[in-house]
C-alpha cells in the first residue's frame, strides 16, 4: 500500500502536538503507512492570505508539488486551515487561469513539478471512506466508557468545500465515535466558528466565542468536546480557566482530538496519544482512561 503523504502544518509541531501523536498512533494501529513530506513549509493560511494572495497560493503549491515529487497520491492535512488552503490552491489554480499560470511558473522557476492531481485529504474523511465504519467497529479493543461527547467540526473543514462532510449538520465524526461506543449529543453548533485567531488578536471576543460553544455543549449534556482541528482544540481547551473566571460558571471539560478517542478504542499505546497535553478537564480524563488502564494517572 502506498503511504499517505503527511503534511503536519505548524500547529501540530506546537500547540497541537497531541493531535500529531494520536494521529500517527492511530494510523499505526490501523496499519496505514504515513510518510511526512520532506521539508514542507507553511500552508499559507489565513494570516498570509491577508497580505498576499498570489504568493500564498505559491507557498501552498510548493507543498503539493513536494508531495507529488515524493510520489504521493493522497496528502493528509489534519489541520482544517491547512486542508482548506491546500484544497483552495488546487481549486483556484484550476479555476483562474491567471493564478494558475503564476503558480505553475513559480514552481518551474524553483525546479518543482507542475501541479497535477494529488488528493488533499483530511484524516476524518480518510478514516470514514478508506477505512470505513465497519472496520473501525471490528477493531475496537477498548469500547468507550467515558462521558458523552459533543462532536465539533469547526468551520474550514466543511466550508466552502463540502468534500470531507456536509456543510450543514455533518455527521461523520459522530458516526465514527458511535462506532467505538461513544455516546454523542445532538450539538447544534458543530460548525460554528471557534473564533480562530481572534483569541490572539481580539482576545475578549475570541474567548466569548469559545464560551458560547462550551456552554451549548454543556446544555446539550456533553461531558467533553471532540475536535478535528488544532486551533479549535487549543481555543476550547486553553481558555476554560479564563471563562470560569469571567462568567462565574464551572465549565471544566476535556477537549479531545477525535484521533485520541479512536486511537484509545482501537488499542493504541495510551502513552502515544498525547493525553498529557490536555489543559482542561484533566480529572475526567484521568477517570475515564483509568477505567481501562491502571497507569492512566501517570500520563494524565
Amino acid at each position, binding site marked *: 500500500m502506498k503511504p499517505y503523504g503527511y503534511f503536519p502544518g505548524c500547529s501540530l509541531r506546537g500547540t497541537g502536538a497531541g493531535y500529531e501523536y494520536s494521529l500517527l498512533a492511530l494510523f499505526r494501529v490501523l496499519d496505514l503507512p504515513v510518510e511526512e513530506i520532506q521539508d514542507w513549509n507553511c500552508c499559507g493560511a489565513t494570516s498570509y492570505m491577508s497580505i498576499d494572495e498570489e504568493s500564498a497560493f505559491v507557498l501552498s503549491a510548493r507543498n503539493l508539488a513536494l508531495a507529488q515529487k515524493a510520489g504521493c497520491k493522497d496528502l493528509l492535512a489534519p489541520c482544517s486551515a491547512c486542508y482548506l488552503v491546500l484544497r483552495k490552491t488546487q481549486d483556484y489554480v484550476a479555476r483562474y487561469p491567471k493564478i494558475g499560470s503564476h503558480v505553475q511558473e513559480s514552481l518551474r522557476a524553483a525546479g518543482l513539478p507542475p501541479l497535477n492531481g494529488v488528493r488533499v485529504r483530511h484524516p476524518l474523511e480518510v478514516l470514514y471512506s478508506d477505512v470505513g465504519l465497519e472496520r473501525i467497529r471490528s477493531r475496537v479493543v477498548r469500547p468507550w466508557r467515558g462521558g458523552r461527547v459533543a462532536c465539533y467540526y469547526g468551520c474550514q473543514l466543511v466550508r466552502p468545500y463540502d468534500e470531507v462532510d*456536509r*456543510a*450543514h*449538520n455533518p455527521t461523520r465524526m459522530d458516526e465514527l465515535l458511535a462506532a467505538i461506543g461513544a455516546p454523542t449529543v*445532538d450539538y*447544534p*453548533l458543530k460548525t460554528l466558528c471557534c473564533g480562530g485567531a481572534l483569541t490572539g488578536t481580539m482576545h475578549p471576543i475570541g474567548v466569548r466565542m469559545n464560551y*458560547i460553544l462550551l456552554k*451549548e455543549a454543556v*446544555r446539550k449534556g456533553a461531558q467533553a468536546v471532540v475536535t478535528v482541528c488544532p486551533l479549535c482544540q487549543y481555543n476550547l481547551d486553553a481558555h476554560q480557566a479564563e471563562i470560569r473566571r469571567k462568567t462565574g460558571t464551572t465549565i471544566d471539560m476535556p477537549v479531545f482530538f477525535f484521533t485520541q478517542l479512536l486511537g484509545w478504542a482501537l488499542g493504541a499505546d495510551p502513552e502515544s496519544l498525547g493525553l498529557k497535553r490536555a489543559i482542561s478537564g484533566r480529572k475526567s480524563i484521568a477517570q475515564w482512561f483509568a477505567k481501562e488502564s491502571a497507569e492512566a494517572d501517570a500520563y494524565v
Partner: protein
Amino acid sequence: MSERDGLRIGVYVCHCGTNIAGTVDVRAVAESAAALPGVAVSRDYKYMCSDPGQDLIRQDIQKFGLNRIVVAACSPHLHEHTFRTATRTGGLNEFYFQMVNIREQDSWVHEHKGAATRKAIDLVRAAARRVARHRALEKSRTPIHPAVLVVGGGIAGIHAALTLANAGKHVYLVEREPSIGGHMAKFDKTFPTLDCAACILTPKMSAVKNHPNITLWTYSEVTAVEGYIGNYKATIARRPRYIDEDLCAGCLECIDACVFRQAKVPDEFNEDLSRRKPIYVPFPQAVPLVPVIDPEACIEFHSHKCKKTCVTACGERHAVNLRAEEKLERIDIGSIVLATGFRAYDARRSANYGYGVYPNVYTALEVERLINASGPTAGEVVLRDGRTPQTVGIVHCVGSRDENTNRWCSRVCCMYSLKLAHLVKERTGAEVFNFYIDMRTPGKGFEEFYQKLLSERVHFVRGRVAEVTDWALDSSEEGRLVIRVEDTLAGLFRRIPVDMVILSTGLEPQPDAGDVRRLFNISSSPEGFFLERHPKLAPVNTFTEGVLLAGCCQGPKDIPDTVAQAGAAAAEALALIDAGSVETDPNTAYVMEEACSGCKTCVPLCPYHAISFAQAARKAEINQALCKGCGTCVAACPSSSIGQNLFEDDEIFEESEGLLAYA
C-alpha cells in the same frame, strides 16, 4: 432560372426602425443588391412589415414584372408568413420568396457597423442566388380531429377540460393520482380573497365527473404519443385501482371493513401528517369517489391470506376486483393540453432550516393541511406534540431565488405566506413573524392583502433566515426553535425564539418533467419547466404544433393565472378544431422513383415512420402527411433519389456559393 430566362428579382431591405438600420447600412445593402445578376429592383424601407411595405412588394411585382422576391428583415419566425402572403397577393407563387434574417442574426448580435453591413450584403447575395432556383409549390391542408387530450387533472387541466367540453368538444382528461383536484384540493383558503378552495374547486370537479363530453381517467398515465397536429394517437395506461369504477357506488363500506382496524400507511394527501388504510379515498370530495387499493400496503397482495373483508362488504355489487390488471386505452385526438403541474421543493435540501431534524419545522403544504378542515387535525393548528404554537416564524424563499437550489422566484410564496400568516394568527392567536427578502405582491388585490396583514400586526422582518436551530442562549429560548436572522431594515442581528417554523417552499418542475417533455416532443427551459413558443405572444403554444400548455408545468403561477392560461390553451385548441384543418408548409421529402434502387436504407431511419416500402414497385414511399421534413432520409439515401421541397440540393448549393462569393 437565369437572367437570360427572364429572371427578375425584387430585393427589399428593412430598417426595422433603428433595430437594423442602427447597425447595418441598409442603403448600402440595397445598392449592392441592385447590382446582382437578375435583380430588377432593390429598395430599403423603414418598416417592410407595415401595410405600405407590403404594398411596395405587390406594386413592384406588377410594375417591374418581378418573378422572385427577397426580403432582408427580421426572423422568418415572425414575418415569413407576412411576406409570403404579400408575394401571393401580388400574383406570384408564395414560395418564389426568400427571407434573410439581418436582425437577430446580424444587427442585434454585432456592434461593428462595417462588418455587420458586409455580412448583410453577403446574406442578401446568397438569398438572391437561392431564390432563382425556387420552384412553385402548393401548401397542403391537414384535417383536425375534434377530440382533445388534457394531461393532468389539477385546476389547470380541469378548467381547460370544462371549457372545451362546454364548447361541445370531446375531452379525454388523464390524471395520475386516484382523484382530480391537484394541489388546489389540498388548500383550505385561497389568497387574497380567502375564499374556501374546496367551495370553488369541488363544483368544477363534479362538473368534470358528470360532463357527457369528458372521459375521465384517473390513476392513469399517457405512455405513448405519435402523429402530428390534428392527428395524434395516444396510449393511456390505466393502473388498476382494484375497485371497478362502473360498479362502485361510493358507499366506502369496503374501507370501514378493511382488516386494518387502524390506519397505518402514511397519507400522501395529508403530506404524511396522518395515516390511511391500504384501501382508501384520498379525501372526502375526491372525484371519482371510488376507493383505491394500495398493493404495497395491502396484505392480500403480499401473503394472499387476507380475509378480504372488503370484497365481502361490497357484497352483490362485486366492485372489488383484486385481480384487476392494467388496461391500455388508445385514442385519436387532434390536439393536446399539458397541465402536469409542479412539485414543491424538498425542504430537506436546505439543511440550515432543520426540516426533518426538528419536528416543529413544517413545510407550507403541511400547514395547508393542518389548517384544512378535512386535514389531519380537522383544521386545528397544533404542533406534533399537540401544543398550540404561541409564536410562529414563516421563512420565505426556501428553495427559491437561490443559486444553490433554484434560481427563480416561485411567484406564489409571498402571497401564500401572507395567507398562512393570517390563518395561523386567526386560528391560534399566535405572534407571527414573516422573514422575507423582497415582498412581491403584484396581483389584483394582493397589495391590499399585504396591508391587511400589516394592520393585523403580523411581524415582517426583512432578511433571509440564516439558520433555524435549537441552540438556546437563555431560558427564553430553552426548548424552542431559534431563528437567526439579520433584520436588514432595522440594522440588527436578531434571534427570535418560536414554537413553529413554516418553510415557504418554492415550486419546481415535476420530477418526471423530462420524460413528459420527450413523450410529447416539446422543449423545456433550462430549469425544466416546459417552454412556451414565445414568452409574450405565444405563451400557451409549444414548438410542437397542436401541443398546448396550461398552469405550473410552464412555470410557477397562482390560481388566477393558471385558470386564465388554461382558458387560453382551451381557446387555442378550439380555434384549431373550428378551423377544421390547418395549412402545412410543403416542407416534405419525396422519392424520385426512377432513381430509387429499393435498398430500404431510409425506411428504418425515419423518426416519424413516414417511409414505407411499396412491395409491388419495389420503391420507397413517403407519406406526405407524416413527413416532418427533417431531412434524415435525404442525407442517407445512397443513390440521392430523395429530394426535399424548400431544401433542394441546387437551392442549397446556390445559396452557399452566393454566400462565399465575396464581391
